[in-house]
């Protein structure tokens, strides 16, 4: 069995599961945020239950429109807060919160070998830890809050092998954008992606979170990494529960095996309006920009800020560019503060925000006007994603985003750091 099949079999109480099989799986953690929780709470209440199945296993994080962007958002955040407190759920208030998918791994709330579901499509981020984690809607989350389990179809697994050594400035973001560019936004529809190979072994945990995070952008149900010494080092300091490590069998059957020469991959940029519309940085051409966003559940971790800092240090943000930097959690914020990164960002003419999903989905903290262009380290560049339906979003990693902020056009870090 593949890694996903091994985990799902254990959680369905079966010896073996195969792709296409319908199972009911136990879940370790159920997650919702300030946008998806209100509907989940309303649906949960329709069940007529007094309590969730286990308050230690239901997490609510206000992160999308928080600190509250307007009165309507404040009402949604309040509804979630009151339910979370009344039910004694795991809840993170402003001041402790972070973007959910940066926060939960950091807090040791998601662990290897677990099954996690969240009312947010980027819940697949936790696949970086070797967990089976997948996004669902509010009603599925409401049902799971009641029962502690979920129906699921066992997905087929596509194995991706990344050979070779990464070039300078290339990170997990570039590998996943390249992959989505190669297989398309439905290239892994209903499937689990398993990321392997020497280039993956060499990746940091932060880069693995970035890759797993964007499995959904290829239509994937989950994006999994095998547990290795880096994973264990990451979780050992943080784990709040016991966990089991699963490894795929040597004779596991994969739906497809796709191999890439990672040493040939340049920093990537996804052009509007699909994450699959990728080009290598050398083929981008002259594209003027108005805004840069560095942050989000995709690229709001320490590796990302350090990389952006390598480019921005001692430079000035282009006078016609707004550069918005958003650490993904309070812990990341504090660490970046201690390392002096935030001071250097401000010196360079960037703004630094409290953790929020805000601009990624055109909520607030950097909404685009008609005709404006942004380079963003986020995960989606659909029409209107970051504001006006006549604006454009170019997806890239933190190094390209930072270089673009300095030069006022989409640029390679090599043009800034010599």
């Amino acid at each position, binding site marked *: 069995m593949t890694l996903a099949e091994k985990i799902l079999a254990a959680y369905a109480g079966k010896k073996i599961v195969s792709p296409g099989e*319908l199972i009911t799986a136990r879940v370790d953690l159920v997650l919702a945020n300030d*946008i*998806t929780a*209100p*509907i989940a709470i*309303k*649906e949960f209440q*329709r*069940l*007529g*239950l007094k309590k969730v199945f286990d308050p230690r296993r239901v997490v609510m994080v206000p992160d*999308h*429109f928080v600190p509250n*962007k*307007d009165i*309507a*958002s404040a009402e*949604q955040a309040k509804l979630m807060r009151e339910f979370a407190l009344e039910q004694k759920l795991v809840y993170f208030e402003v001041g402790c919160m972070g973007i959910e998918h940066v926060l939960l791994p950091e807090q040791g709330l998601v662990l290897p070998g677990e099954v996690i579901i*969240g*009312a*947010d*499509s980027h*819940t697949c981020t936790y696949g970086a830890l070797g967990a089976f984690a997948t*996004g*669902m*809607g*509010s*009603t*599925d989350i*409401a*049902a799971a809050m*009641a*029962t502690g389990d979920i*129906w699921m179809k066992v997905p087929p697994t596509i194995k991706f092998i990344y050979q070779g050594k990464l070039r300078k400035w290339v990170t997990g973001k570039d590998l996943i954008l390249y992959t989505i560019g190669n297989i398309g*936004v*439905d290239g892994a*529809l*209903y499937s689990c992606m398993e990321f392997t190979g020497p280039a993956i072994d060499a990746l940091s945990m932060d880069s693995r979170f970035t890759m797993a995070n964007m499995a*959904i952008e290829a*239509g994937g*149900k989950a994006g999994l990494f095998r547990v290795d010494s880096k994973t264990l080092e990451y979780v050992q300091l943080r784990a709040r529960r016991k966990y089991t490590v699963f490894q795929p069998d040597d004779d596991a059957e994969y739906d497809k095996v796709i191999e890439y020469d990672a040493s040939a991959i340049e920093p990537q940029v996804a052009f509007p309006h*699909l994450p699959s519309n990728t080009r290598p940085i050398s083929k981008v051409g002259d594209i003027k920009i108005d805004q840069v966003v560095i942050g989000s559940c995709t690229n709001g971790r320490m590796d990302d800020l350090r990389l952006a800092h390598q480019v921005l240090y001692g430079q000035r943000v282009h006078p016609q560019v707004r550069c918005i930097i958003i650490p993904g959690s309070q812990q990341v914020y504090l660490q970046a503060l201690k390392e002096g990164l935030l001071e250097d960002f401000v010196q360079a003419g960037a703004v630094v925000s409290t953790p929020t999903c805000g601009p990624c*989905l*055109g*909520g607030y903290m950097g*909404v685009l006007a008609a005709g404006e262009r942004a380079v963003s380290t986020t995960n*989606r560049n*659909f*029409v*209107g*994603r970051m*504001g006006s*339906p006549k604006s454009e979003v170019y997806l890239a990693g933190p190094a390209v985003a930072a270089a673009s902020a300095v030069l006022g056009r989409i640029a390679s870090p090599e043009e800034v750091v010599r």
Partner: protein
Amino acid sequence: MKLKGTVHKYGADVNTDVIIPARYLNVSEPAELACHCMEDLDKDFVKRVKPGDIIMADTNFGCGSSREHAPLAIKAAGISCIVAKSFARIFYRNAMNIGLPLLECPEAVEGTNSGDLLGVTLATGEIRNITRKLVYQAKPYPEFMLELMNSGGLIEYTRKRLESRRTR
């Protein structure tokens, strides 16, 4: 259940951001969401749509975020079902959970234009293009999906499950 309505046809990869832009996600009332349904893809959709109408689309309909606001907005706008070549998986679950039926049928999508009148029989998956006098067969629902639909959605289905647990 038999459904009948006029087709509004779209291309591939219609994502949840254009179905209901995030700037409207500070509310979750279906009727309010419906006012902005498809706004960034087809500004006049809400003016044109009539109760019972059918959305038709190419592959990967509903890709992107997990926002249940997307199928809620479509359902509250009056759409009776969606026929597409394929659906993104979270959208598929969400729509079926809230009682918005989805059918997969590439042939019907190929043979139908916007404005055609369509008849759909959910139990059998039969899709009739009344305008062009053509009949198509959608992929049948898995048994579990039928049970979910017959229960009236996931919440009702879960309520039954919880009751049977208690009485066991």
